[in-house]
Each structure stands twice: as structure tokens, then as C-alpha cells.
């Protein structure tokens, strides 16, 4: 297990270096002086000159990158153009709301998708299967901001029982937090549920055909036990893998959902920063999100070696 973990972690190094290169060049691609881009047009010449030295802008590009990377690794992402706050604490404070929203939408998606997928697979080619499969395809085709807007229309305007947007910390007002959470979590969860349902159905179909399932049936194991204990346990690996892959969709989805619902997470922070031309924040947010995505995929890999030890040997 130790060796496996080490080799997986080592394989991340080139990817993380690559993502840092992308984040670095993102700011360099903006036409004009990076120091002005990073400080804003209204910055005074003295601080621009100071930042030029700090970024080593008169040095070769490789040196500039290494200087920048060194600062990133010590948690120095620079300062926001608006208000001059440090970027790193800004990013950290946005992580909490995003994590809560993501967790809630994953739970919602699993609660919908796994039963629906299993029902569709066990009653293949019935109306239940067609209905669930078509619903999943609709979910995949639904732009999440439209679903969000429809939910706001329904539950905040037509039947005003939930707030249209906003956020309150769960520590201050747990009940209020949940009321704010419902609509964005449903919006994000629905998108995830669609893919998870399709994956659950496909793997369950595969597994239900396996010899050991036939054996279990033949020796008289009740149908419910066959489905849950024999089949579903073996269908979990692709589902967990998909969950890992979906983290990318999730981390992208929060950008849109958080913007629609004014949820103060990393996605809204990124969008706001893009419009304020707050490039230090954009750079930091892009780097942080990509790093999180890569790390979550590592964790997924580790989780499914725990679910299924055969993976480790492969």
C-alpha cells in the first residue's frame, strides 16, 4: 500500500507543475505589462516598479517562473487588486462554502441516482427503465443555470418558500443555512445525478450478468440480497471512479451555480475576480481549483484500492 501510494503521489508532480505553468502563463498572456495587470490600472508607479522587481520581470522567463513558484509554495499568492487583501486567505475563506455546497449536492445526486440506476438495471426495458434513462439524459442536457433559474422561479417567486439567493454561515444560523442551501444543492446535484444514474445502470447491467450473480440466484439467495450484496458491491468501483471524475464537473458547476445563487464560494470568487480584472485572485483560484481536482482524483484512486484490493495489484 505504501509503495502504491508513493508512486501515485509522485505521478502527480509533473501534472501539478504543468498546472502551475498554465496559471503562470495565464497572467503573462494578458496583453501589456504583467505588473500593471496584477496591480490594476490605477496603481502608482512606485508600487508597479516594486512589483516588477519582486516578479523578476527583468530576468529570463524561466527565472520569473521559478521565483513565482517559490512564492506560491510558501502560500504567497500576492494581493487582491480590490482592497489589497492577501489572496491566499481569501481563497481559503471561500473554500468552506464551496465544500459544503459540493458535499450536499453529491449526497443529493447519490440519493437520486443509485436507486434509480439500480431500478433501471433490474427492470431493464420496462417503462421504469425508459423513464429513468430518459430523465437522466434530460438531466445531462440541462444547462445548470437554467435549472437554477427555474427552481428560483418555482420556489422563490411562484411559491415563495425558499430564498432565491444568499448565504449564512451554518455556525451562525444552521436552519437559515439549510434554507439557502436547498436550491443550489438541488441544481448541482441534479446535474451529477444524471451521469451517476447512467453509470450505475450500465455497471449493474454488466454485473448482473456475472457468473457469481447467477450462482447466488441459483442457490436461492433472495433477489434483494443478490442485488445489493452481490451485484451492487461490485458495481461500486466504477461509481466511485465516476465520482472522482465528476469532481471536475462539480468544481466547474460551482462556478455557475454559485454565481446564480450568490453563494460566496470559490466559483463566485473566480467569476467576480475575472470581471474585476483581479488577476492575482484569478490566478490563485485557477491554481487552487486544479490542484484540488488532481488531489481529489488521487483520493479516489486510493479509495477504490480500499474497496477493491485487486486494483492495487494491477
Amino acid at each position, binding site marked *: 500500500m505504501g509503495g502504491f501510494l508513493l508512486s501515485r503521489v509522485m505521478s502527480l508532480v*509533473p*501534472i501539478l507543475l*504543468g*498546472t502551475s*505553468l*498554465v496559471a503562470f502563463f*495565464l*497572467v503573462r*498572456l*494578458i496583453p501589456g505589462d504583467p505588473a500593471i495587470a496584477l496591480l490594476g490600472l490605477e496603481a502608482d508607479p512606485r508600487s508597479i516598479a516594486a512589483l516588477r522587481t519582486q516578479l523578476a520581470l527583468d530576468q529570463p522567463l524561466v527565472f520569473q517562473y521559478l521565483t513565482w513558484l517559490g512564492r506560491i509554495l510558501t502560500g504567497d499568492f500576492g494581493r487582491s487588486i480590490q482592497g489589497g487583501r492577501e489572496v491566499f486567505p481569501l481563497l481559503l475563506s471561500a473554500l468552506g462554502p464551496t465544500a459544503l455546497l459540493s458535499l450536499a449536492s453529491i449526497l443529493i445526486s447519490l440519493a437520486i441516482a443509485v436507486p434509480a440506476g439500480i431500478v433501471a438495471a433490474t427492470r431493464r426495458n420496462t417503462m421504469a427503465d425508459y423513464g429513468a434513462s430518459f430523465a437522466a*439524459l*434530460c438531466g*445531462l*442536457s*440541462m*444547462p445548470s*443555470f*437554467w435549472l437554477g*433559474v*427555474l427552481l*428560483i*422561479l418555482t420556489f422563490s*417567486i411562484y411559491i415563495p418558500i425558499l430564498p*432565491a439567493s444568499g448565504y449564512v454561515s451554518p455556525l451562525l444560523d444552521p436552519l437559515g443555512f439549510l434554507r439557502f442551501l436547498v436550491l443550489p444543492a438541488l441544481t448541482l446535484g441534479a446535474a451529477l445525478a444524471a451521469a451517476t444514474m447512467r453509470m450505475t445502470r*450500465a455497471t449493474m447491467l454488466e454485473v448482473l450478468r456475472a457468473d457469481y450473480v447467477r450462482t447466488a440466484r441459483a442457490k436461492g439467495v433472495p433477489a434483494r440480497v443478490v442485488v445489493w450484496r452481490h451485484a451492487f458491491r461490485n458495481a461500486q468501483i466504477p461509481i466511485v471512479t465516476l465520482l472522482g471524475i465528476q*469532481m*471536475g*464537473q*462539480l*468544481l*466547474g*458547476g460551482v*462556478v*455557475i451555480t454559485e*454565481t*446564480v445563487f450568490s453563494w460566496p464560494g470559490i466559483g463566485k470568487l*473566480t*467569476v467576480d475576480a*475575472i*470581471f474585476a480584472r483581479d488577476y492575482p485572485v*484569478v490566478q490563485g483560484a*485557477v491554481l487552487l*481549483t*486544479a490542484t484540488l*481536482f*488532481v488531489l481529489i482524483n488521487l483520493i479516489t484512486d486510493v479509495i477504490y484500492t480500499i474497496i477493491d484490493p485487486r486494483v492495487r495489484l494491477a
Partner: protein
Amino acid sequence: MTAAAAPFTAFSRGLVGDRRATLGFVLVLIAVVAAVAAQLIAPFDPDAPDFAAVLAPPSLAHLLGTDELGRDVFSRIIFGARVSLFVGFFSVAGALVLGTGLGLVAGYFGGLLGTLIMRVMDVVFAFPSILLALAIAAVLGPSLVNAVLAIAIVNLPVFARIARAQTLVVSQLDFVEAKRALGFGSTNILVRTVMPNMLAPIIVQGSLLFAAAIITESYLSFLGLGAQPPTPTWGNMLRNAIGFLDLAPWLAWFPGAAIFLTVLGFNLLGDALRDIFDPRNG
């Protein structure tokens, strides 16, 4: 050649009998006709304000109502199809051509070049696609062309990975070995033999990514990073609708429905194609 032709016979036979495919085809066709013949179909100039009919609900005069400037929503949606399909087509076509090329080279020649190409693709893949598209569009500046570029870049690794994997499989096969033994050059083998044999998965992926590209474009324009007003796009119409949700909810219903139905069309087609090429999934 037969190897390449076989999937296409199956393809046309499979599509005709498949109800999902028919529905998908019809939805896509509607969008294409709207985009191509927008000038002929749209009852109004999509940009012409009419201050006598501001925020008018759907009626016989304005089938889908009007927006806050009195512009006809139906006409704007028809013209919006142009942007969606333009971005969808060029971003997927660009990614398909370049990505497949890179994957072919990486798979066939391997070595340091191959590793380097795939490492770069891994890095692009390490970003959540919407986020990367957003960042690229933000840096390049909001415009239609930059939206195409951003979405194309994000989709590159998908095609590169499929093409590489397929190339690795196909180039081990006997008939490729035979061509090599007969002294055919690499370009000839790649273009004439390897490429036709990996078209099926590439086409399936292309149709599914077309759907995803339309959604991504709508996200970009929803956030104000796509084609700029007054050009109507489904995304920027929805962005605009947010300010009038309680006064004029139809502004939010119809552009969203247009995106949804078009994307559903491409997804249905993509699914049907996949089942035809890989019947095990059905």
C-alpha cells in the same frame, strides 16, 4: 476500405429504426434550420427595439413575448441558434482535427515526443473544463472567436487520448504490419489505414462534445464572456432574464428551453451512435 465502410452501413441502418435517434435528429435539424435560415424565419429584426411593447408576455403578435427593450424573444432565439451552433461546430471540429492529429502522432511514434504531447494533454485535462474555458476567455477577452478557442482547447485532450489509444491498438494489427513490411511510409499508413479505423469512437465523442460545447458556450455568454451584446445568444438572453424574473419570467423560460432541447438532440444522437458502434452498452 471495408473496415471503414462497415460502421457506416451499420450506422445508417441503426439510425433509421431508433426512436431516440429520430427525436435527436429532429431536434438538431430544427436548430440547424433556425441557424441557417434565421433571416427568413424570424418574424422581427432581433435587435429592433419596440418601446410600445416592452416586456410583453407571449401573445399572437410576439409568440414568446418581448424583452425589456421590446425586442421579440422568438426572433432573438432563432438568431441565437447561429451562435450556439457556430461555436459548437468550430470548437469541436478544431479540437477534433488537432487533438486527433496529436493523438495519432503520440500513439504511432511514441517516444519522447509522444510522452511530451500526452503530458501536456494531461495538464489541460487536470483543469475543470468550464473553469479553464472561463480563464482562457477572460484572458483573451470576451468574444465569439475566443469562446470557440477556449472550448476547443479544453476539448483537445479528449480527442488526443482516444486517438492515441486507438492508434496503439490499430498499429499492432496485422494489416498495418503488412503495409509496413511492404514499405509504405508512416504518413500513408497513418492517413490511409490507422485513421479510418478509429473514426467511430471519434465521431461518437464528437457528437457528445458538440452537446457539451453548446452548454459551455451558454455558460460563457451567461457570464458575459461569449459573443457580446447586441448579438443575441441563448446564454446572454438568460443572463439578461435574471433581472426580470418576477416581472417577465418568459424571458428565462424560452432561451433555456432552446439550449436544453438542442443539447438533448445532440446527446440523443450521440447515444444512439454509441449504441450502434458499441452494442454492448445498450
